[in-house]
């Protein structure tokens, strides 16, 4: 059965249609062509034609022309629009004409690098010129490294390797840096928040080294659709970029369905679990031999869904090898095998976190099912794009969970379809991140007085002086030199706040490594007695050794999973900006956050009921970060005509709501921001709600929330007042059991108070 037949069936199924809040059909779009630019090397054009590329899409044509004219370019097009040609063509054009020229490609993951090299080698093979294309990453054998350094025309790597393995050894990469013509950064949208802020600094170092060798490479960035690609590229590359976004690639007909699971308990506002609904829909696809991808928001959900689907497929009398999980924490070989299985059809359903959002080549799938809203418009479109990459009919189903944001999106489809995707945020000048890279940069080439790294020469020299105070650098006459017997890049991870990962070892198998989690997440995911799921096998953690970064696990068979609770304490260090909004004051500044994992709950599979709890014994951690907070007047309760006890409920209810809608406003991961309501704020003793970033020093989200205060509160109000529940539910202010019976009413009044124009308090 093909997808259009399935679509017809669904259309004719009233029970299914009853749960839909939107059915959008996007018509097929024909291709638009722009031709090969005239200046293109004839050999290259011939080679492309030999590979069946007889014309360029409009965006490809424009991008190639813009690069050849000497500009830095940012290309934005949806998944599968042939964007790799946008950079491969100008790079190969230059290399065909100048065998000494070099190019550096950056991909966020190793897997993407490998795909890319395979594709490039295919193109090069038609050219009859010797162009060496190599991946250089942690997996590159030592014996091959020298050859790559000297004769690799195109070096394909990731930011982490550039940061630890290439830049600190630039003298042995002289040939690359002296002749570097192009730097290609693909999947630019992936570099938001912490990772992007790091990347911007890695590029500052790269440019500094290029300048040392007299090179001035052009930058070509590619991004999936986000609201501010040009701004984002310019923030990361710190050069004016030309935007190319006239997509000319064809697109097959696509059906985009919004599905809200039926209400099972109207009072508590509880709906049928999105996981169950996703299982049901995915099962139909498996039954009809249609290949699908199911996205879930957390690693845990991926594991649960995989378990359910494997059961279903066995019940259908088929092999459970048809179903597979895919997420971070799986070992690279496991991942490669899954990607292969998807391409050759051995795997018919893959359950994934956003790990498969990226351009990993898994071929074209028919159906994309999203279990819960991914948290951002941009990444929802990315996930949707995984279905129907070529030009056949495809189906996308977004299944809402009970989470507030999901309920908001599902009941406001127009918000999703009409609004442009979110803007990405990076803060290359995060003091901690920038300082880390100034260390690395000083290791690479001593800093001269007056040199600028980041903001201006004054702040640069302040940071350098600080590092000299710490005896990491030494100022001698007009230069700062690296002056320690260590290798700074090794201690700085681009992806997480904490360096390194905690590996999970299976003690029943002589300590075989079964997975990894980042150090930051370890206290929440692999505390003692936690249930850790891997490829739907269950393990219990016997011991977490944070010092050695190891968690010892052993397989178990239980009917529950665990969920950690964290206790949080806040202090305000400094407020940078403040503004009155009506009766309230909004502020942004620096916070000190102390958190302590306190207990965990055991939650039963299937019914999701709470079947027990335990304590977590781990030391508390303190972090300095950035936050944005709203202080209400001391007499807020009186003004809002609620009791003082209800105010506390209102504060946590609104905090819950804000935390849910905030990621949409600033395009971050839901885990990047946390929220806390407080009856007496530590700074002013007033009732307040804090939203703070989980990365030390923050990466700009707080600032953005401060700016978008109104949008944020309007979204919160719209979510709470649009929710059909009476006294608050998991879909808006949080379950009334936790927040209290009056949370919803109070939260709504509080939210209005935080807007200029509060309206009637009683509304």
């Amino acid at each position, binding site marked *: 059965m093909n997808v259009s037949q399935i679509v017809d069936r669904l259309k004719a199924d009233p029970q299914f249609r009853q749960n839909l809040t939107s059915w959008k059909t996007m018509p097929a779009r024909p291709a638009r062509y722009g031709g090969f630019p005239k200046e293109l090397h004839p050999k290259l054009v011939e080679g492309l034609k030999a590979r069946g590329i007889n014309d360029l899409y409009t965006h490809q044509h424009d991008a190639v022309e813009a690069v050849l004219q000497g500009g830095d370019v940012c290309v934005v097009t949806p998944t599968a629009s042939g964007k790799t040609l946008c950079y491969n063509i100008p790079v190969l054009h230059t290399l065909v004409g100048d065998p000494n020229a070099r190019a550096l490609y950056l991909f966020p993951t190793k897997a993407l690098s490998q795909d890319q090299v395979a594709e490039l080698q295919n193109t090069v093979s038609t050219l009859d010129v010797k162009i060496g294309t190599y991946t250089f990453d942690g997996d590159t054998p030592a014996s091959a490294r020298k050859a790559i350094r000297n004769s690799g025309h195109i070096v394909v790597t990731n930011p982490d390797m550039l940061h630890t393995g290439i830049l600190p050894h630039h003298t042995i990469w002289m040939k690359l840096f002296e002749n570097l013509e192009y730097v290609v950064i693909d999947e630019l949208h992936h570099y938001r928040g912490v990772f992007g802020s790091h990347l911007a600094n890695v590029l500052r170092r790269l440019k500094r080294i290029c300048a040392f060798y007299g090179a001035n490479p052009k930058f070509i960035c590619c991004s999936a659709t986000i609201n501010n690609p040009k701004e984002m590229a310019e923030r990361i590359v710190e050069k004016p970029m030309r935007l190319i976004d006239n997509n000319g690639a064809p697109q097959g007909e696509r059906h985009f369905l919004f599905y809200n699971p039926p209400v099972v308990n109207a009072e508590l506002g509880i709906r049928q679990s999105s996981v169950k609904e996703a299982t049901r829909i995915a099962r139909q696809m498996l039954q009809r031999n249609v290949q699908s991808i199911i996205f879930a928001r957390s690693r845990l959900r991926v594991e649960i869904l995989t378990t359910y689907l494997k059961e279903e497929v066995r019940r259908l009398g088929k092999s459970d090898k048809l179903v597979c999980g895919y997420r971070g924490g799986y070992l690279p070989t496991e991942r490669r095998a899954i990607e292969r299985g998807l391409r050759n059809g051995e795997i018919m359903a893959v359950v994934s976190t956003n790990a498969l959002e990226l351009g990993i080549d898994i071929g074209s799938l028919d159906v994309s099912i999203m279990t819960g809203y991914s948290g951002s418009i941009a990444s929802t479109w990315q996930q949707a794009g995984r279905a129907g990459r070529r030009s056949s009919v495809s189906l996308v189903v977004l299944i809402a969970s009970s989470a507030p944001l999901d309920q908001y999106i599902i009941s406001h489809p127009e918000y999703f379809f009409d609004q442009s995707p979110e803007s990405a945020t990076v803060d290359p000048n995060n003091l901690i991140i920038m300082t880390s890279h100034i260390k690395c940069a000083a290791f690479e080439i001593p800093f001269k007085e007056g040199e600028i790294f980041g903001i201006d020469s004054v702040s640069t020299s302040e940071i350098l002086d600080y590092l000299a105070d710490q005896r990491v650098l030494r100022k001698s006459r007009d*230069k700062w030199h690296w002056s320690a017997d260590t290798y700074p890049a090794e201690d700085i991870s681009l992806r997480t706040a904490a360096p390194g990962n905690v590996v999970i070892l299976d003690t029943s198998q002589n300590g075989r490594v079964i997975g990894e989690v980042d150090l930051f997440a370890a206290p929440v995911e692999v505390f003692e007695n936690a249930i850790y799921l891997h490829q739907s096998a269950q393990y219990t953690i016997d011991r977490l050794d944070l010092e050695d970064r190891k968690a010892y696990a052993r397989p178990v068979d239980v009917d529950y999973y665990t969920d950690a609770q964290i206790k949080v304490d806040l202090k305000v260090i400094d407020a940078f900006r403040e503004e009155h909004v009506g009766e309230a004051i909004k502020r942004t500044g620096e916070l000190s956050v102390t958190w302590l994992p306190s207990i965990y709950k055991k939650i039963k599979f299937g019914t999701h009921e709470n079947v027990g709890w335990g304590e977590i014994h781990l030391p508390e951690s303190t972090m300095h970060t950035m936050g944005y907070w709203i202080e209400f007047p001391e007499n807020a309760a009186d003004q809002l005509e609620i009791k003082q006890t209800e105010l506390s409920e209102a504060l946590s209810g609104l905090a819950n709501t804000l935390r849910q809608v905030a990621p949409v406003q600033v395009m971050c991961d839901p885990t990047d921001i946390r929220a806390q309501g407080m009856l007496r704020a530590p700074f002013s003793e007033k009732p307040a709600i804090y939203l703070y970033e989980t990365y*030390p020093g923050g990466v700009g989200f707080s600032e953005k929330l401060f700016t978008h205060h109104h949008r944020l509160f309007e979204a919160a109000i719209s979510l709470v007042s649009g929710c059909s529940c009476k006294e608050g539910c998991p879909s808006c202010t949080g379950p009334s059991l936790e927040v209290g019976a009056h949370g919803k009413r109070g939260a709504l009044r509080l939210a209005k108070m935080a807007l200029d124009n509060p309206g009637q308090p009683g509304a």
Partner: protein
Amino acid sequence: MTNARDKLASLLSTPGLMKGADWQQKLETLRQERESGEFEIDKVQPGLIVGETDRGFFLVSETFPLDTAQGNIDLGAVLNVCGDHIALSSSDDALKAFDPRKALFIDTETSGLAGGTGTVAFLVGVGYFTEDGFRLDQCFMRDFDDEEPMLEYLAEVFKDKEAVVSYNGKSFDLPLLRTRFIQNRIPFRLDSGMHFDLLHAARRFWKRRLGACNLGNVEREILGIERHGDVPSYMIPQLWFDYLRSRDARPLTGVLYHHKMDILSLVALAGWLSQCLCQPNGEGFTHTEDKFSLVKVFFNQKRYQDVIVHGERIIADERDTGLRRECLEMLAIASKRLNDFPRMQDILTLMVTEYPSDLNARWELAKHYEHRARNLAEAERICSEAISQLETRIALGRALGVSESMLASFEHRLARIRSKMKRLSSPE
């Protein structure tokens, strides 16, 4: 808090770290000490500043007469080396042209072992022979600014040198110096010529006997040198960093001594090695392990005639089984390569007698009797013995996989030998 320096201090502060007033106080003391310059390097160590005060470096230069003893050998001994021996000991034919008078003996002390562009060589020692003896220049950086004038000076020293002699310089000192030269934009030509890396040579000749071949160990065991008041290598970077801040160079005199000794030992070791190699009949080597190592060097360079000559001497008077057996193995292969089959037969027979469980030797011998010597009866006997040995092994459950596959091979061979015997014995 708008100043990045203060803000960082608060963001990243760790309890116990010096702050505020304490810190100022400490800095002040340091500044005073520094300005007094009482224990600056030129006050505590004989030497001179090359260049101007603020654009120069500190040079300790000394010339040693050729008969200066370094352990049990004179520095001048190395002048008698023969390029062939150097080439042999380093497995590098380019070194046949090695001329000690045009060689540069080099060693560096660095600000760390991490590698990469942020590690500097704050002390570079270069030694070479002049008409007056062996001249050693120890070039020392009093601070980072000294690097450029120091490298310029070194570039001049490098100019007329054809070869480099070092201890582990191939993978450490030279790449590091190359990086330093590139960083200072001074052309580096030292790594294009010959390079005699004594670490590799020392491993070839002495690893068997000494195990660890770090310079300290080799120097003590081979040259008989006992150092006094030496500084452990791992402390050296920190001593230099401390000096940069305190300007008290007294702890560094130990580093300069350590470094001087390293280079003198390098010269002595090169001399010692070539002296050993120069003696006829390998008499330069007294320990059996070293003699054996020499055989192995010949063997690896496919000099089979030499393997036979030197190897048979070891066999004649060595009873240590491990060495003896390895030596016999090399001899057997060498005779085979030389097509000297009678000798090979003798050696293999000896092996089978002395090491009855050596099935590889049996295999080779059986092959030899079957195909070359055409002594089928002997071949049959050897195979049968091997088979019964293997059957015992398998019965005892030892190395099953290997034993089983060997058994199959021997049985196959035995069957073939027997059928050949049958064919030959049956009347036409």
